[in-house]
């Protein structure tokens, strides 16, 4: 694997192999005083973030450091990006400076694909850490790792994803990956937050959360972004919360074993009630913890795996 740009097209064997590697890394680090593996010593990972992000950037940075890579963080505010440099020039500069891997987050859908094209000759790997409304593959992989951990398997499970499907890169990555891993996916959202063309996705679509909850093994809640609330996609935050917010009553409609996921950051009281977010049924902090191991696994597959294989 040279790049990780999307979960669309990621085959089941590769996805499973990444998840297995993440499991192994997690076990290897368990109980260790010094949580550092020498695997990527001498390799340079650059995180290039054109959007604000705490958890994803920190997660990649920690993942790189625990693998002993040199990690350099570049954010759009603190580099020549703010002087109007093109994405292409920035990418070529980072590659020339010695990046083995660029982890990129960008507001434009397809930005990671474009970056991978420009860096084809440099030999630099690209990890998509979120491109516009397109994909966020490591989020989907860490969600799958968490589901596997909590439910024992993903295959045959029924996963509900609730909220702003239209603008969500997390959804697109999850739909592809969960389908590849054999799960049933049901998307629950008001029609204004579903893309035209969703009928061709490998999912079921519903507008009624209460009707879906009893059959779900897991529910994944999406953050409702402030600009959507004011964009007329639904009448009010209150009405959204009444129809699609996961409160304690709704949690009670789900089977005992069912878990609650949220990619964060959460809007407590909006899409998720505080009591639900803090309940043992919620796997939200597990997701963050697994995110580090999963990203270690991704860096391993991109930067170390090939060499060991040959």
């Amino acid at each position, binding site marked *: 694997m040279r790049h990780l740009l999307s979960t669309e097209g990621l085959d089941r064997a590769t996805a499973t192999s990444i998840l297995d590697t993440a499991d192994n890394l997690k076990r290897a680090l368990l109980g260790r005083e010094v949580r550092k593996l020498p695997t990527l010593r001498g390799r340079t990972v650059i995180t290039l973030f054109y959007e604000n992000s705490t958890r994803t950037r920190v997660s990649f940075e920690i993942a790189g450091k625990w693998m002993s890579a040199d990690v350099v963080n570049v954010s759009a505010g603190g580099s020549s990006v703010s002087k109007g440099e093109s994405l292409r020039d920035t990418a070529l500069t980072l590659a020339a400076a010695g990046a083995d891997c660029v982890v990129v987050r960008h507001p434009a859908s*397809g930005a990671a694909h474009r970056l991978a094209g420009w860096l084809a000759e440099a030999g630099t790997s690209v990890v998509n850490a979120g491109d516009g409304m397109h994909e966020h593959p490591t989020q989907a992989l860490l969600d799958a790792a968490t589901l596997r951990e909590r439910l024992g398997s993903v295959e045959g499970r029924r996963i509900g994803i609730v909220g702003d499907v239209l603008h969500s890169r997390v959804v*697109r990555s999850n739909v592809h990956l969960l389908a590849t891993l054999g799960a049933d996916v049901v998307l629950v959202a008001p029609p204004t937050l579903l893309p035209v*063309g969703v009928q061709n996705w490998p999912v079921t679509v519903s507008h009624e959360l209460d009707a879906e909850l009893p059959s779900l093994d897991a529910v994944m809640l999406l953050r409702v972004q402030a600009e959507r609330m004011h964009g007329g996609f639904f009448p009010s935050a209150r009405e959204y919360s009444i129809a699609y917010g996961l409160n304690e009553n709704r949690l009670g409609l789900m089977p005992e074993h069912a878990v609650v996921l949220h990619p964060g950051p959460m809007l407590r009281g909006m899409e998720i009630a505080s009591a639900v977010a803090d309940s043992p049924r919620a796997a939200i902090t597990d997701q963050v913890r697994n995110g580090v191991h999963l990203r270690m696994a991704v860096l391993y597959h991109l930067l170390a795996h090939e060499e060991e294989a040959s």
Partner: protein
Amino acid sequence: MSALASEPRTPDTLLLRNVRPYGEGDPVDVLVRHGVIAEIGAVTADGVETVEGNGAVLLPGFVDLHTHLREPGREDTETVETGSRAAALGGYTAVFAMANTDPVADNAVVVEHVWRRGREVGLVDVHPVGAVTVGLKGEKLAELGTMAKSAANVRVFSDDGHCVHDPLVMRRALEYSKALDVVVAQHAEEPRLTVGAQAHEGEQAARLGLQGWPAAAEESIVARDCLLALHAEARLHVCHVSTTGTADVLKWAKARGTKVSAEVTPHHLLLTDDRLSTYDPVNKVNPPLRTNADVEALRRALAEGVIDCVATDHAPHAVQDKDCEWSAARPGMLGLQTALSVVVEAMVRTGLLDWRGVARVMSERPAEIAGLPDHGRPIEVGEPANLVLVDPDATWTVRGAELASVAGNTPFEGMELPGVVTTTLLRGRVTAGRIPA
């Protein structure tokens, strides 16, 4: 660069040997004298400069109602000179240069400048399009009368790139245009439905996470404008029709007597949004590439005359405006040199149009719509020698770097296309030879 004959080299008399007008019948000879067709048949003329046709198809020179020549303002992407050369090489004898220059062609000074530059270059008749509203802002009518009566003799007005979205402003423009015998050409795009839009709203955009440009944003404006044009008893021209629904609306509007005409671009006749998977902005254009069903519908509508003509929407862009992330890229594609070949591929090879039909959609109808008296004329003795010779059997491979435009943003890069323009005549003068293969 191809062999361009400059004025002194073109003789007063020129013989086109073995050519087939409209691709019909046995080859004939066409004698051109003083810019006019003097004889058609078996011509015996000794010592006359001769272009050997080898049975090539002879058509009236093409007329493009929709080009962006970028001068003044973006001469780093195209100029009147380079655009004229591209047009001549594409078989065009007249082009309409859109108003979205910098400064905007919303006044007599700018339109006269563009018109004069076209005359100086002399490879194609360059007709400036005037803006409908001041600064293309859609608020206040530009001085249409002054531009119409200027030396540029503006016949077509358009805010292309922007929609005249305010229904009252559009109504006034349509009404006002009647007194001037000009036509308003609308870029149909309801702006409230296309905020941030990046791609045709459908399966592909949903998959790629690109903000959707719904077909209804075009269709609703076309429907509204057709109703306004009928009410005002004015003429309306619809730019770059891109959807099945718009073709349906046009058919309905024409059936009830609306004086509406419409154009389709070559790229909307051949390309679909399937190409967007690479996120390469060379495929970004406004209106966006649509679905295969739309392509089929547009071809049928053009064949049936529901859509009147082909117009290129030739839109040169600098490398840095295309070699970037999708949402940052400017929309638009080169079109002048590839239009004929794309029409041959999409319409002739499919049996939807014969060469008479090609003459109709590439030359006669656009000349009529714009009111050009000397273009799109029959190939007959006494008519102006605005002509193009096409080798129908030859093919060529498109290379952006080899096109005459300053910019190279062709979506047809690397494609082998049929139909090669071998010679273009503007009033008897050779303005283009063979496109380099």
